[in-house]
């Protein structure tokens, strides 16, 4: 049984189908990359799965259970965690407290929550920033905080929306390493969307490509990178050429 | 308590907030009375002018301690405690609003301190069996009953200036009352007596105090074309009501209002000749001066100090303080129990008062305790912007103008 199963999902915003009859499956333990042009509907798909949007049509199954139309907090309790493309947290909660809020999802005891939160912060390299407020931190660190908060809810499926945007190549590499580490340590299933190929290509076991709300391709990273349609719509000639030049991936 | 040269009385009025105007008038009136008691006033035709302090207390002077309750019952209660315990007053006078009078009298009852209330008209106040609470003014039941009795006389043709009015011509009532404690209480009484005297209430409108618009109210009030209009309103609403009725060119046979809003200099000033024919219940009118020289004499002084003539509320405040002076004098002691005992038995003659009452005598009758049974109301009618007395007939100063000319 696949962990997540999306069947014929359609979401439209006032006539514009942001997701158009999308079907896909994710097995437990996989790392799936979701790519596609800007406005292809990736974030919308994420939001439908998590429950911020209610699909107009189609079904979403998680661990065999129909979760279509559940609220975000319910899908989270089912075991789906997510990070945000842009996360703006105001208020006076420190990083540690924010992560603890995540832990409180599964326990009501403060000590346990604190314990778990510190563990996760160690894992994500946030030990130094426990007492900081989110707004004071650089974007790269904010992204890690988002990751830590999602992890604290002990998800089985973690959905990452552009965790590497705005990072320079070096930081991107660190992020890839961190994701790989988390994947191994926590035994998660990862579903990530990203425009930075330096993240998607090396980490994904399978890549799904959306364009105009439809799934246009699906396959191993190498195949996708060479798929003419994907290159034309998304990667661009230069990327394809550059890749050939450098001969990497 | 408070022996020696001073005897302290706590006076609680709304000195700021929306009804500050009324509160300050009352403050002026009680101050004037205290001044009469404390100093020599050879020209004053009543005894207090010669007292120079309270004779029964070896010439102790009255010292008034004012407090401002802003119309809030809880603030009033707290201030009453301040006056009673911190200031050690021998008694309390006030509080204008019936709601505040309720909480303040409760504090007095608990602390066993006498309170004389000059002006709150809620009938409930004297129905609580309180031993320490005395009310000098007639209350709304009495006022409303007076009016219905006056209507009776009208039907019988006993009112000078008007032929007997057939019952069929004056049968329906439109009542319009405001929405706080006072208006709601008045409305109950109006309903009760209308039923008892055989009138039909065809429109019964209550409206929120200080409403930004009263069009719907007026429309509803006037729609069944009632013969008699009855009002209980504070000044702001009285002004707006009258303006709105004027827009509607309101007509009826009789226009009767309950003092307060409709019986203030401001009201007459605002509407001038449009006030012609409006009836008010009150306890005071300038026209009384003809029959009560003492009132005239005191009014001169009052006007000098506060810029306006006595009206219903201020005249009663003055009278309330006068009652305090008489009670203290006769008690000859500042012991609360002695004061209470005295108040229960005292009889103050009407000739000493500025209001046209038989006098002041606090009695327990008809389920009420310590209500001044010698008090009575007046019905006045604006004629050429002057409040002429038309009831009781024996003190009437003018003929009744009937029907009400309406607003044009």
């Amino acid at each position, binding site marked *: 049984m696949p962990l997540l199963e999306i069947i014929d999902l359609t979401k439209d915003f006032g006539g514009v189908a942001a997701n158009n009859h999308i079907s896909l499956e994710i097995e437990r333990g996989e790392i799936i990359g979701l*790519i*596609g*042009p*800007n*406005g292809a509907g990736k974030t919308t798909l994420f939001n439908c799965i998590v429950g911020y949007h209610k699909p107009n049509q189609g079904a979403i199954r998680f661990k065999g259970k129909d979760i279509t139309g559940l609220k975000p907090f319910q899908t989270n309790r089912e075991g789906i965690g997510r990070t945000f*493309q*842009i996360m703006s947290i105001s208020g006076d909660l420190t990083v540690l407290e924010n992560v603890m809020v995540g832990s409180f999802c599964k326990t009501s005891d403060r000590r346990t929550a604190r314990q778990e939160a510190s563990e996760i912060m160690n894992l994500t390299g946030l030990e130094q920033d426990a007492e900081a407020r989110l707004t*004071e*931190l*650089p*974007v*790269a*660190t904010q992204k890690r905080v988002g990751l830590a908060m999602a992890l604290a809810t002990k998800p089985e499926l973690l959905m990452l929306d*552009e965790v590497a*945007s*705005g*990072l*320079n*190549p*070096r*930081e*991107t*590499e660190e992020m890839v390493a961190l994701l790989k580490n988390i994947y191994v340590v926590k035994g998660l299933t990862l579903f990530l969307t990203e*425009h930075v*190929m330096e993240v998607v290509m090396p980490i994904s076991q399978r890549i799904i490509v959306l364009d105009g709300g439809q799934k246009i391709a699906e396959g191993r990273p190498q195949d996708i990178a060479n798929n003419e349609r994907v290159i034309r*719509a*998304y*990667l*661009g000639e*230069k*990327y394809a050429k550059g890749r050939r030049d450098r001969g990497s991936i | 308590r408070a022996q020696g040269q001073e005897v302290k009385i706590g006076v609680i009025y709304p000195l700021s907030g929306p009804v500050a105007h009324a509160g300050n008038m009352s403050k002026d009136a009680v101050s004037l009375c205290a001044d009469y008691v404390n100093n020599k006033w050879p020209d004053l035709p009543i005894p207090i002018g010669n007292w120079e302090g309270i004779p029964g207390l070896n010439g102790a002077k009255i010292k008034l301690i004012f407090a401002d309750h802003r119309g809030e019952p809880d603030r009033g209660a707290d201030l009453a405690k301040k006056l009673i315990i911190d200031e050690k007053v021998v008694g309390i006078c006030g509080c204008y609003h019936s709601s505040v009078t309720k909480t303040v009298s409760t504090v007095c009852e608990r602390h066993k301190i006498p309170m004389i209330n000059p002006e709150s008209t809620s009938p409930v106040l004297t129905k609580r069996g309180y031993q320490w609470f005395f009310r000098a003014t007639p209350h709304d039941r009495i006022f409303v009953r007076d009016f219905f009795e006056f209507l009776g006389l009208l039907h019988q043709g006993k009112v000078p200036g008007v032929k007997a009015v057939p019952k069929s011509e004056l049968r329906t009532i439109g009542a319009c009352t405001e929405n706080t404690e006072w208006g709601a209480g008045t409305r109950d009484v109006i309903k009760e007596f209308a039923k008892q005297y055989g009138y039909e209430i065809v429109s019964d409108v209550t409206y929120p105090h200080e409403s930004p618009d009263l069009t719907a109210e007026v429309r509803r009030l006037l729609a069944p074309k009632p013969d008699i209009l009855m009002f209980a309103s504070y000044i702001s609403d009285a002004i707006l009501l009258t303006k709105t009725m004027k827009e509607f060119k309101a007509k009826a046979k009789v226009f009767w209002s309950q003092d307060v809003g409709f019986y203030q200099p401001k009201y007459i000033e605002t509407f001038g000749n449009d006030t012609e024919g409006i009836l008010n219940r009150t306890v005071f009118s300038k026209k009384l001066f003809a029959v009560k020289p003492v009132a005239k004499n005191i009014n001169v002084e009052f006007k000098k100090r506060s810029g306006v003539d006595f009206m219903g509320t201020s005249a009663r405040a003055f009278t309330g303080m006068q009652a305090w002076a008489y009670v203290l004098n006769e008690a000859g002691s500042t012991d609360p129990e002695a004061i209470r005992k005295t108040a229960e038995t005292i009889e103050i003659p009407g000739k000493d008062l500025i209001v046209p009452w038989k006098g002041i005598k606090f009695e327990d009758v008809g389920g009420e305790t310590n209500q001044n049974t010698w008090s009575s109301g007046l019905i006045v009618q604006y004629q050429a912007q002057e409040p002429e007395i038309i009831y009781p007939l024996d003190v009437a100063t003018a003929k009744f103008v009937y029907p009400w000319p309406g607003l044009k």
Partner: protein
Amino acid sequence: MLKVEEIEVRYSGVPVIHDVSFHVNGGELISIVGANGSGKTTVLKTVAGTLHPTKGSMEFENEDISASTTVEIVRKGITYVPEERRIFGPLSVEENLKLGAYIVNDREEMEKSLDYVYGLFPILKTRWKQLGGTLSGGEQQMLAIGRGLMSRPKLLMLDEPSLGLMPKLVDEMLEAVATLKKEGNTILLVEQNVREALEMADRGYVLQTGRTIHEGTGQELLETDIVKRAFLGL
């Protein structure tokens, strides 16, 4: 044209920029690179007048601008295209562009700018009536740059114009920047695509924790250790 010398900038009392100096000459494309949180955005915002230096000086065309407000600075001819794009969502593409020319009082002048921008980004012309908020990320970025160009600034500051764009658009965006430079615009560019940004640039600066630590031509900087190690991860 722009000369920034030893500025210090603070966020609620805490210095974030300690000592930054650089200059831009007319017609140049200058890149500023640096790690996340090194203060690039802060520097641009300071030049744009939303923040003010607590030390040091800033001159634009030989006039001191360190205490000028944003409005004054825009009027002097510097526009800033912010990292987050900040499109007016409920307004149409064209309204957004016209607001870009707010300081231009001459109608004809504005029409010309509009044509220029539409020429540069034809896709905006086809979308002129669409609400800004409903554009895709790439389109929004083009709109933001176009809006910045509407007042025909003497100096255009771009903060990470490729952020969040798909690879194909990143290339297009960088090409558009190159075109702008070719047309004679003066540009101050902040980019995470360090390699491309430095390759295009006439000169560049490297920022580290609020200090300029290197200056040189794009090629020179690409050769430095710090750029290779810290940014390119080679």
